[in-house]
């Protein structure tokens, strides 16, 4: 099967085949391509980013590590459903081990417009 490696902008076209029960990756220019090729056919993962409404504005968030692709919309829902706190700072953990994964959800940005004088 053919796929495009998403680990860096080189965007290598990978060929991933099963040979004698082993997964063989070709077309990659670096070891990260092999890692990606194997991961993508056995257990595809993505870093998920989203936005959550808070009082007076929004926060942007992401998973700390890539999580299973099939959990994409579950993770998005968990972010929307998380209770809203009074204050947020960049780096705060808002959900630990989201959807049973080993990833936390952290705050990447806080967007609250200043009040007009």
């Amino acid at each position: 099967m053919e796929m495009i490696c998403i680990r860096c902008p080189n965007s290598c076209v990978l060929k991933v085949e099963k040979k004698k029960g082993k997964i063989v990756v070709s077309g990659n220019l670096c070891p990260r391509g092999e890692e990606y090729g194997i991961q993508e056919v056995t257990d595809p993962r993505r870093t998920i980013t989203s936005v959550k409404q808070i009082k007076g504005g929004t926060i942007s968030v992401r998973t700390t590590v890539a999580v299973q692709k099939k959990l994409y919309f579950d993770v998005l829902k968990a972010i929307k459903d998380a209770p809203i706190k009074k204050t947020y700072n960049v780096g705060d953990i808002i959900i630990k081990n989201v959807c049973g994964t080993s990833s936390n959800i952290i705050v990447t940005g806080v967007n609250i417009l200043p009040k007009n004088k």
Partner: protein
Amino acid sequence: MKTDVLVIGGGPAGMACAFSAAQNGASVILVEREYRLGGILNQCIHNGFGLHYFNEELSGPEYAYRWQQKIENNKKIKIMCSTYVTKITRGVNFFVEATNPEGVVNIEAKSVILAMGCRERPAGAINLTGTRPAGIFTAGCAQAIVNLQGKMIGKKVVILGSGDIGLIMARRLVCEGAQVVGVFEIMDKCGGLARNYTQCLQDFNIPLHLSTTITRVKGTKRLTGVYAAPLINGKVDYTQEKLIPCDTLLLSVGLTPEIELVSNFNLEQYPFTKSYAVDEYLQTTEPGLFLAGNIMQVNDLVDNVSNDGEIAGKSAALYAKGKLDITQKIEIAHDSSIRYTIPKYIYKNNEKSARICFRTDKEYRRIFVTATSNKKQIAKNYVITITNGQIYNLNLNKQNLNKNLFLSIEQQKIQE
């Protein structure tokens, strides 16, 4: 107010400029029109930023936050947010007029760096015909509404243009519950990076229609549909025009540098970038006036932008001290596989090296980038791949540089 270096724009380029100018001993004023620093990074919530600078995959706001931390408590840098520059003139020094909630601000600076980035090309720039209903947004504008204000812009969306912002917004809108009917691209290949095509469109089964464009829009109050038609031999085939029902159209059709502020200066223009020509210090043909970031050329990686900022910041600090070495100017020549170079000029001076960026006419794999001066080869770099539209950075050792410089691309001979 007086300063050595004035930086206009508080995004990734401007923050790096301020940091670097201060590191090199200059006093700095950084002016930003928004209420906070970060620029467009604040709305780029997706990840993939900072692989080179921080060795991590950060989101846009985090990348901005890291730089903000580097400059915020620096005594040499004065940051002025909610401030908009209206006019720049020059005597010996530059005189800059700006406005902010307190009133008019006058700043006198020895050197000025423009780091205002780009603005998006709107519907008017692509002769979009039809009615003028609500529901037509540029992709970046939609990104600001969805990511910063947390508001949705529509339910059924068509995207015109497959640049990176268009692809990233397609995924964002699906994640927020919208249906993205398709992405339409007038060219015969995807405009954005292949990795963005994979993780933004393929992952969500969003179709990409190549060699197809939107011919007109329909709807009175709100958009009710767009007409799409394929291109045959570069011409739109109206006989195959089809109506696609939707309530929202996103335009991701290119960026234009914000260069009008200095149109009163007689700067050499650079048609390849729709901006101004610069030398290795990122200085325009007006001494002491520098460019950095997307105002100079549209970058695909923010790390490149920060790198620009570091070069321009240092150069502006040196200019303010009267120490910018500009002996023997050389115009860089190149073969036809290289579309243009930044800078356009370098100097045969005491600087040991210079960064030269270029884009190629098509994709190249396994090549040598060679630099020749006075018929002598002075650099030969092996490059695994330069993808279409990607910027290649060459760090040229200038020790053997003579009266001229020629860059070329050579295919590696493969023995099998």
